């Protein structure tokens, strides 16, 4: 009886011992719940439970979503967003993988210059980038005049075209992708590569059999964050993209501010959540696994 009592006392004191920790982490956790989970959950519920015309009671209905998928313009916008996202992410990998490999295995002065230049966009905010690219790529811009002076006259500006968005988004994503990929490559031991070379492995074999499997996590993180980042972008597609089709960010903003259709904008927001849900889960799982692996 007495034993039981002391154990309960111990339990209480360990619980009290946890209290300071919980109190200290509570503010940011609550802020995240209130500012991210609560609005997102609210949007999902509100778009699924639509108020009836007569009595104003809410009941489950997919009306909002059937409206969306019956609207050809909105559907076009969604497809456009998916395509721009996939092309941008693919472009980023095609550009950044060779650059990251080069930066990992070369320590020449040229490599140092390449690194500085490719990380530079980290310090250029999106809004300034948009302004700079309009003046650079736009009609009668610097690139146009530059090409004219060397005799190339059939320049078609990518400004207000999908290629303009993709160019700008790749520009923006370049440093982050290179940082993540080189971080992954740095974890591969030089001795491993040399021993593979000793037994006669070629460059391509070393890349596909050793480097790629060992940097799988970096590749996944770069893919997920770039995908979600581009899918949820607004500034670049709004300022550099065509008036139609629009990316979902621009479409939402227009529905929300110009058409004052809050529920419509909310439905579009939830659809972007759904499109990114799988990728988001993949991202969280990749990082979580690594963390837990490190702890063990």
């Amino acid at each position, binding site marked *: 009886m007495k034993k039981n009592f002391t154990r309960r006392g111990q339990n209480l004191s360990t619980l009290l011992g*946890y209290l300071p*920790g919980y109190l*200290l*982490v*509570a*503010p*940011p*956790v609550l802020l*995240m719940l209130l*500012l*991210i*989970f609560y*609005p*997102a959950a*609210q*949007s999902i519920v509100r778009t699924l439970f639509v108020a009836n015309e007569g009595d104003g009671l809410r009941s489950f209905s997919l009306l909002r979503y059937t409206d969306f998928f019956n609207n050809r313009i909105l559907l076009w916008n969604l497809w456009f967003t998916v395509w721009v996202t996939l092309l941008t992410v693919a472009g980023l990998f095609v550009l950044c993988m*060779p650059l990251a490999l*080069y930066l990992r295995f070369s320590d*020449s002065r040229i490599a140092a210059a390449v690194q500085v230049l490719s*990380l*530079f966009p980290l*310090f250029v*905010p*999106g*809004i*300034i980038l*948009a*302004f*700079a690219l309009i*003046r*650079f790529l736009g009609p*009668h811009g*610097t*690139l146009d*005049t530059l090409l*004219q002076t060397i005799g190339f006259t059939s320049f078609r500006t990518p400004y207000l075209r999908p290629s303009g968005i993709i160019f700008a988004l790749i*520009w923006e994503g370049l440093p982050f992708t290179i*940082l*993540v990929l080189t971080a992954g490559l740095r974890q591969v031991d030089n001795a491993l590569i040399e021993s593979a070379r000793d037994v006669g492995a070629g460059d391509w074999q070393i890349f596909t059999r050793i480097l790629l499997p060992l940097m799988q996590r*970096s590749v996944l*993180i770069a893919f997920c*964050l770039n995908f*979600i980042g581009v899918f*949820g972008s*607004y*500034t670049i597609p709004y300022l550099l993209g065509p008036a139609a089709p629009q990316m979902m*960010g621009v479409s939402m*903003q227009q529905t*929300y501010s110009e058409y004052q259709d809050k529920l419509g*904008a909310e439905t579009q*927001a*939830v659809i*972007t959540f759904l499109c*990114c849900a799988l990728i*988001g889960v993949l*991202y969280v799982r990749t*990082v*979580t696994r690594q*963390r*837990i692996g490190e702890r063990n």
Partner: protein
Amino acid sequence: MTPSETAEEQATEATRPKQTSVNLTLRAWLRVLRRESFGLVALLLLIVGILGPISTVFLWAFTERWRYPSLLPTEWGIKYWAQTLSRADIGSALPLSIMLSLVVTGLSALICLPAAYAFARMRFPGRQLLLLSFLVTNAFPRFGLYVSIAIVFFRLDLVGTVPGVILIQLINTLLLMIWIPTSAFQGVDRALEEAALDVGASRLRVFVQITLPMVLPALGAALLLTFVSTFYEAQGALLIGLPNVRTMPVLMYSLINNQVIVQYGAVISLVLWLPSFLLLAFVQRFLRGNAVTAGLGV
């Protein structure tokens, strides 16, 4: 053997050593070119693609007139600097932007730094799960989330107010302000602290004189990154702030869309760049410490 032939032979003999050395340097250069061909091509493309747009902004900021087929401005000058900086909208937007960034960074530090200490040093069930839950801030498509938040804020009358903008900008700072300091606190050598405690230092003194100096560079990096990214945050401020709260990046939207005079945008871009240059000055330390990627869970 004719004399001319011998003369020729002599001539070639005389030039031979010179020629081979020329050939050697040429060959060395060719070898460097071949070995570095990828790097050189990459460098050239990056110079055009990255520096091209940036230098265009610089050129426009110091231009008085730039007629189309000319490669460089036709008339240089700084006339537009005074004109731009005396605009009333900039006069109100710049202090507002600086104030907002300071308040958001301060609030974020106040909320997140104690939590980071707890995540690193205290033991409680669910600690790892809670720490990882902040990754969710990256798992939502940004603008969709902002629209969701805007609708909640609309009902709370926070749209068009400074507190509304502060709250939406706080979201972006959470992950960075928790993960970078947490790993810094985890990296502190506990033996040093215990040694100080053993010789009779108080807990507060150990924290101020031993723990804090060791985490200060990482905390500085987190604070600076938060300040700069908040200063440039445009989308949340656009959706929540308008029509009453107009920060510098939000002002840029209207300047890009409706302004005929290009120089205004160029001058503001350069002014807006100042905090970024500050960041650039510290870049070496950041990238070596992997602070940027640590804040993203890499």
